[in-house]
């Protein structure tokens, strides 16, 4: 799957034109993680958004110093968006469960793209809110 095909399958980029997707693809850098490797660590400052291309990652939060896996995310899902929105520290640790390929987007480059092309910015921010909402619904249902 080429990068534009991948981006089309990611809700964050739903509604973007082919030209817009080319602009997003231009700021993506592919990175591979072996099973067990950490993509992001809870509490640390994060400057990257990850789009899972292949594989599976687990998201873990510390509860009273005990780590608890809250969700697994497969291809097409994004992680690291919260620190992009609020500039806060990572809210969770993200670890590759299997060998995993991600597209990495630097927050500053992403923000710059959204500000240069406000059409992209509006759609992406709207889609990001929807993705966060979906994750919250998932968490509510998983705790019933």
């Amino acid at each position, binding site marked *: 799957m080429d990068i534009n095909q991948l981006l089309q399958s990611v809700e964050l980029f739903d509604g973007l034109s082919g030209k817009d997707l080319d602009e997003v693809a231009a700021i993506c850098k592919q990175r591979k993680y072996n099973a067990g490797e950490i993509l992001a660590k809870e509490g640390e400052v994060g400057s990257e958004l990850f789009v899972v291309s292949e594989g599976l990652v687990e998201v873990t939060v510390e509860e009273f110093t005990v780590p608890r896996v809250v969700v697994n995310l497969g291809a097409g899902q994004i992680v690291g968006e919260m620190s992009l929105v609020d500039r806060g520290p990572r809210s969770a640790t993200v670890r590759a469960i299997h060998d995993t390929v991600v597209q990495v987007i630097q927050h500053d480059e992403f923000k710059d793209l959204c500000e240069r092309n406000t059409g992209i910015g509006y759609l992406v921010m709207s889609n990001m809110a929807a993705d966060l909402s*979906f994750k919250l619904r998932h968490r509510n249902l998983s705790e019933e």
Partner: protein
Amino acid sequence: MAIWKVSYVVKSSELPGGIINLDHTPEPGEILQIGDTHLEILEAFELIPARGDFHYIHATCKVIEQTE
């Protein structure tokens, strides 16, 4: 290109559940392979209305095989 974004939870298991994309509507009885785990879908329903190319589904599953 329609995509089904699926929130799944696993009944009677310590597995955390997750979110995956599928290229088809998940149906009860279908087997999903998530990593090394095979899950059978027990129930699936639309969680929120479809938007753009995306359909949003919630599925309840049970473990039928786990190799790790």
